[in-house]
Each structure stands twice: as structure tokens, then as C-alpha cells.
């Protein structure tokens, strides 16, 4: 496997995290400063269930949660795998760690995606 591919996706995932996490921070913490009424229609705190449900109804938010989850998992686990690769443990153990991280990444992505879709379903039901 050419590592430039993994490295490129690692960097792109980092950029995605920067943008989406930035958006998350703005929505969560700058709601009083910026005109975000449409995203927090119930007023009060951005984290209140009514506001969370209102945002979850929007397809954009569901998609952004899934993309952020994928990007964060790939970026973080690839980085962790690189760190493990540079330790002095044996090659077999390194391969085992890589396999574990891959399984963990896929499993967490499936669970997280299910949660994002389910949250939208719940919000839609009201």
C-alpha cells in the first residue's frame, strides 16, 4: 500500500475535522453572539433537547455528524497506528495492533452512524 494515499487522507480528514469541529464550536458556544436562531429555534441553551432535536431533523447535520465521525476516527486511529509503528515492539504485535484498530474503527463508525440516523428518526417523530 502506498503510504502517500493514507497520508493524503489523514491530512484531508484533519481539514474536515477543522471545518466541522469549528462549526460545532460556533453552534455550541457562539449562539449568543451570532444570529443562529434557525439552529436553536427553542431559544435557551444550544444543548437543550428541543434545539438538539431541531438540528437533528436537518439532513445536513446528520450527514455532518457522520462525516465528522469518519474523519475523526480515520485521523485519530491512523495517527495512533503510526505511533505504535514507531515503538520497539515486535512486527507481529504491530500487525495485531493495526488489525485491532481497523476493527475498532469500523465498529465505532457503524455504531456512531446508527446513532446519528436514529437520533434523526427520534427527532422527526417529535
Amino acid at each position: 500500500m502506498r503510504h502517500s494515499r493514507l497520508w493524503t487522507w489523514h491530512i484531508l480528514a484533519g481539514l474536515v475535522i477543522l471545518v466541522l469541529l469549528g462549526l460545532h464550536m460556533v453552534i455550541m458556544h457562539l449562539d449568543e453572539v451570532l444570529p443562529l436562531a434557525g439552529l436553536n429555534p427553542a431559544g435557551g441553551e444550544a444543548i437543550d433537547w428541543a434545539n438538539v432535536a431541531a438540528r437533528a431533523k436537518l439532513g445536513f447535520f446528520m450527514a455532518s455528524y457522520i462525516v465528522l465521525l469518519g474523519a475523526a476516527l480515520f485521523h485519530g486511529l491512523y495517527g495512533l497506528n503510526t505511533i505504535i509503528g514507531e515503538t520497539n515492539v515486535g512486527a507481529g504485535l504491530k500487525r495485531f495492533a493495526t488489525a485491532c484498530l481497523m476493527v475498532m474503527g469500523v465498529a465505532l463508525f457503524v455504531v456512531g452512524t446508527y446513532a446519528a440516523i436514529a437520533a434523526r428518526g427520534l427527532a422527526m417523530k417529535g
Partner: protein
Amino acid sequence: MSESKTIHFRIRKFNPETDPAPSWKTFAVPFAKGMTVLDGLHWIKRNQDTGLAFRYSCRMGVCGSCGMLINGRPTLACNTQVAALKAAMVVVAPLPNFHTVRDLVPDLTPMFEKHQAIRPFILREDKGEMDAPTAEFYQTPHELEEYLQFSFCIRCGACMAACPTMATDRDYPGPMPLAQAYRYSADSRDGGFAERAKAVDRKSGVFSCHFGSECSAACPKGVDPAKAIQLMKRRLVFDYLRLFKAKKPCGGVHGQRTTGRREGIPEAPEYTIK
């Protein structure tokens, strides 16, 4: 430092065939103006320890043989003036990240094997032209600048000894081979980028570099291998994203080779040794 002074050399001694572990020996050496660490080692070998092993050849920072760890810095012994160290003690050990053959002599074989693996020469499809060129390859000064700095490498291994990634990952090619992979790939006469990419774009390859830049700080020839490594990474990523447009290696431009002398080239001087 006055000329009547003595300077102390603390040297790591180790013969892997007979010694269970390395030991340290201190020598008092008379200081002389302009004295290099290599001069000091020669004095010790002549006067105090004839068995002391160290490697050198040119004594002028050109051959790359005398790389060693001097007061904690990997560098060339012939290029390091004792006075410039500004220390009462000169501590000398073999280059780290290599096995020791004996005393101050590192085993550089892995470095040269990794260097060979990146195919450090011009690679072209027109093999006939490589083996028996019919003309000279044209290169603009700008094209020369693309790789010139990286071609000053003398394979001394100081960068390899300074590299933290080398210390933990034996499969990592190291700064010198990676810098040379870029040096040849950036040469407008070369067409071997794809082949070299196979050697460096892998696990424990060029992307294992953390850009700590210790290699560039250690390099006694100003090669800046860390820069070459980042340029190689950029080229590989751009190549993957199809943003890098490979140029055809330049061809011969001066026409067919002639056996006679070209116009305007003066005669060579007479040989001084008959």
C-alpha cells in the same frame, strides 16, 4: 586557549569481538592552534594508544569517512576544530544508530544498502543513451538549482545518527537515502520517480519523518535533508492527487558527439606527473 595547554579527550573504546561492554578512556593531548578533533585522535594513536580505531581519508570534509559523535553532536572529526568546541573535554564516541565495528568506527553498511535501494543515479527509459550517451543533456541553471543543494551530500552518516526516527525504526531509510531519492527525482535528466516512489512510499518510509530537522542541524555540508524529505512527501501526495505533472526527462541537445574538441575549449594544462 593557549598553545601550551593540554586538552582532554574522553574516548569510547569498544571491540565487540573481545569486550563485554564499551568503556571510556581519557587522554591528555597537547593543544595546538588550528587543531581538529581528527588531529587529536592521530596524536593519541601515535603517542598513547596505537590500537585506537577510527576512520578517515581526505582530512578536509570531502570524503565523509570521519563522522563521529563529538561532544554529543554527530559531525566530521576533520571539520571540527577543538578550540571551536569551547570545552575543556572533548568527548568522542562512534555515530549512534549504527553498530560499532570497533572504537570510533561505525558499521555504515545498512546506510549504503538503503542508499542503493533508492537507485541513486539517473534513470531513463532510453537505456542506450544512459550507457553510451550520444550527446550532452541540456539543463538550465534553474533546473540545476532544483537539486544542487542535495547533491552536496558526502554520505558521512551524521544525519542518520541525529535522526530520532532512525533510533526507533530500523526499517526507516533515513535522511540521507531519502534526500538522495528526492535529489535524483528532482533532476530534469531523470525519469525514475515512479521507481523510487516504490522504495520510499511505504510503511516505515518517507512519511515516517516527523520533520524534527535534527538531520539538517547535524549535516556538515548544508544539505538540509529534512527539506528534501518534505519536498519528496509533497511530490508523492501531489502525484497521488494527480496534481503533479511529470515532465519528460530532457534529451540530448548538443547534437551528435564528435570525436574532436569543440570550439572555444582551451587545451588542458601539461601533466605535472609524467
